[in-house]
């Protein structure tokens, strides 16, 4: 066991964990932030996506110890009083049904909009669909998810 410290959603946190502890387990089990989900546990489905130092990563495929000192943002950290534009867009466009994949969809959505804006690239429908390759939805289907991200991109 060793102490792993990082900043999660703006708050300094610390926990004693094993070397093999995954970042997603650190977030869910030690911090009790259960908005980040574990779907496949094989880095396919994207329900565990969080931002580490501003970049989307699959927290089921990163060790907690590797995030020592990092700035981590989870789904619980994106709203600032009001819903984040990405959250609001999923609400407006019926971008979710069961909701299991939604935290990962929203974290990936925010990441892709930020990257495309920073690089001055157009995030069109084809780009959104390509960018969603690592996020799987098994009920709503992708049409409304794509619409949600497109709306948020115009508002962010």
């Amino acid at each position, binding site marked *: 066991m060793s102490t792993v410290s990082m900043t999660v959603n703006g708050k300094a946190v610390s926990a004693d964990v094993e*070397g*093999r502890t995954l970042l997603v387990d650190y977030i869910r089990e030690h911090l009790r932030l259960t908005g980040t989900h574990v779907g496949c546990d094989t*880095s396919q489905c994207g329900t565990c996506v969080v931002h580490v130092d501003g*970049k989307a990563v699959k927290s089921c495929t990163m*060790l907690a*110890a590797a995030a*020592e000192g990092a700035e981590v943002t989870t789904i619980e950290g994106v709203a600032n009083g009001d819903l984040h534009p990405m959250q609001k867009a999923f609400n407006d466009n019926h971008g979710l049904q069961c909701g299991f994949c939604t935290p990962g969809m929203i974290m*990936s959505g925010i990441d892709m909009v930020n990257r495309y804006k920073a690089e001055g690239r157009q995030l069109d429908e084809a780009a959104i669909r390509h960018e969603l390759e*690592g996020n799987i939805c098994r009920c709503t289907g992708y049409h409304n998810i794509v619409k949600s991200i497109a709306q948020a991109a115009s508002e962010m």
Partner: protein
Amino acid sequence: MHSLNYHKASNASEAARLLSGTEDGKFLAGGQTLIPAMKTRLAAPSDLVDVSGAADLRGITVSGREVRIGAATTHAEVAADDALRKVCPSICDMAANIGDPAVRHRGTIGGSIANNDPAADYPAAMLALGATIKTASREIAADEFFVGLFETALEDDELITSIGFTAPAAGAYAKFPNPASRYAMCGVFVARGDDGVRVGVTGASADGAFRAGDLEAALDGAFSVDALDGISVNAEEMLSDIHGDGVYRANLVSVMAKRAVAAVS
């Protein structure tokens, strides 16, 4: 996942020192292959030495047409590097289509090459670009580096530090992803350099990435899509599995090579 001791290295020499003190340690880069392998217990190292934050293993330098990419540079960094894109857009485009965005934020070029997954994209690029793989103690030509399925010329404790190559005059990579896994069922990297055309193939062979000599000879004769008509690889040496048999994969090699040539000619 079995229990393990985690160590973080801040540079390459510290990584080597940390690994030498372990019973059965492994280097950890982005972990996008190693961590899933450890979850299924295909790998169970006693220790992990994390090199993802090693400053001297990161970054891309371009000097004229000479390119050096640090081993711990992520796929996303390769995809987005403006200086690299100016001299060798093909490797940027290839990196932009590895895995998915989150995987590209963690996965590294050194990790991909050291793992030598038969369906990984980078090995085909390294062969086609005639890259040199550098470690702390030596330089290994790509042609000598990829030995077989998940096998490389690396010693157990040898760490890749960087990859170097001369940007070709033209190059392109065409991939046929498996519709479900999105791994390459066949990926062909074509590079047209000063010393002729080199063609690297991934995903198709049971022995991992390889160079397609007959395709290179045909393209040396005339660098055109038509030059590849009727030219392919030996179907008996290609992978046959539930996703496609050897004949199918041999045909994919030819078709992907044509698409790559079409993209640059």
